[in-house]
């Protein structure tokens, strides 16, 4: 596995190489689901592991995620044909008043690298904008972030609005950001919490029982 060009291209963050390797493999008759689960996902797992071990930095995560994504773009229509379930859809955004998007962008990229479809609502997202997006995209997960203690309460407000609108049970909710703690997540009734971007992918997968 670790010698397969697709695995190597994702691990090295070589987007063009990843696309080429997917094309070649498909031409040679490979099964799309097999390409994904035997090479691409293991490569991203290895990237995550290297990051956790301090051997990779975020830039290396990001280019690997982009390589993964460019390979996936070829695979996704084929996977849909074969009826394979997509990993999941996530809406991400920072809560109202919060303009800090470094962490949010990182989580979005990592989720994409993890095979999720990501709808990024950007920064300073009002609760109504979250609900509108849920109604439009029917995501599996809503992921909110906040960097400031002053904006963090926007997470609770958003969850309250979801409840009012009867949408709370239609999505899993994940939160994160510097001031956010597991305890706060429990308090406001979020389903998951992560301290780090790589942790966010793990949490998202476990929420969807993947």
């Amino acid at each position: 596995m670790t010698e397969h060009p697709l695995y190597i291209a994702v691990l090295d963050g070589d987007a063009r190489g990843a696309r080429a390797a997917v094309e070649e493999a498909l031409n040679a008759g490979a099964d799309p689901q097999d390409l994904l689960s035997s090479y691409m996902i293991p490569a991203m797992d290895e990237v995550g592991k290297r990051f956790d071990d301090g051997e990779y930095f975020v830039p290396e995560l990001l280019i690997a995620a982009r390589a993964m994504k460019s390979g996936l773009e070829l695979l996704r229509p084929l996977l849909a044909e074969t009826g394979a379930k997509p990993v999941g859809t996530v809406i991400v955004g920072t809560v109202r008043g919060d303009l800090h998007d470094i962490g949010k962008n990182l989580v979005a990229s990592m989720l994409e690298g993890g095979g999720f479809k990501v709808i990024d609502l950007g920064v300073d997202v009002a609760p109504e904008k979250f609900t509108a997006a849920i109604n439009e995209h029917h995501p599996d997960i809503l992921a909110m972030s906040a960097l400031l203690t002053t904006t963090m309460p926007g997470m609770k407000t958003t969850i309250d609005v979801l409840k009012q609108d009867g949408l709370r049970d239609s999505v899993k909710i994940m939160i994160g950001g510097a001031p956010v703690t597991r305890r706060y997540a429990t308090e406001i009734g979020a389903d998951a919490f992560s301290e780090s971007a790589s942790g966010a992918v793990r949490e998202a997968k476990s929420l969807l029982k993947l």
Partner: protein
Amino acid sequence: MMTGVCERAVDLGAPDLLVEFETLPPMTVDPQLGVTITNILATILHAVQARHGIKAALRLTPNDSRDHRRPPPMRSGYYWENMLRLFAAAGAAGADMLAIESTGGKEIHDDALMNADLEGIVYALGVLAPRDMSFLWRHIVQICNDTGIVPSGDTGCGFANTAMALASQKMVPRVLAAIVRVACVPRGLVAFNEGAVGPSKDCAYEGPYFKAIAGVPISMEGRSAACAHLSPLGNIPMAACDCWSNESVQNVRLLSAPAPVVSMDQLIFDCRLMNRASLDGREASLTLRRWLEESDALLDPQAYVLKPQIVFDISQQIVLQPTPYLQTRTAVLAAVEALKQGVKHNGLTLSAIELRWLDKLATQSAALPEDEDEFIALMMRKYKDSPYIPTEYGLPCT
């Protein structure tokens, strides 16, 4: 909080005190709120001054709220106008100095930093930020002159300290953060060229370069600011500082006193040590400075680029360049080179992963074109779909 901090300063017999008030966004967006709070702080501070004879000054640092809209309009609109209002009212409200952490270019820099993309970083710091600061600081200096207060300085906080924080969290390489630090120098110089006179902002760890090049007094923070950001720069910033400072101490109660009072306490003991050493004369000051410097410098590249010798060397190269872009390019090249030499000859310790990244960044920096127009054209294409408005930086439309 202000009262507690001042009382501790008086209790410990500190002779001088510079208090900085950085606004929170709502206080700039609504200048009246910022003015009211400035007024309260100034009143307390001046009362302490009158009662205890401590020399005290208040620096107002309105936050740069222009990036509240994305892409940010930098030279007009609601946020800009309210910032101008707060600048104009600062003197009458009791502030003695005005500073800012300007954010021009940050909308490009944040992403470039996460991608360790030196090209984008240099575009933000060497092209966008200087153009913005030139515009912004011309206004600030004018207003300060009109209202009789001191235009002090700017800081690469939103750039280099973000990099430092990410490096502390092991998200980006430390060598990258060290290079970004040095790359923040030319943008910071723009403020002084427009008439700022210092002291520079404490969170501008690039301050020693300002001192070397522009000769202005600088504020620095180090281990005393660990409450706000953990950093590998604990002692070395003390080596060249004129004001010694803490940063964003949250007003939580500790066992003894609120955290800001505790922090003031620690600052004063640091200052006592430095003042005591300098009583023994120039040789003694230099000895303490060397200890402070050498206790950090070889343990982290971000500390290494603040070594006085390195600061002088790189500063000399920067001043030879005519424009902020070329200065920034030189800063990057010189920082890369200094780190390489440091590893080779001077005992700077870098992990294997950091060494790998130093090579990557050396390659990237070597590719920065010498021709500024060529670089700008390249970047305007690269960032044509990015959330910034070139005309707000005096650049042509894309």
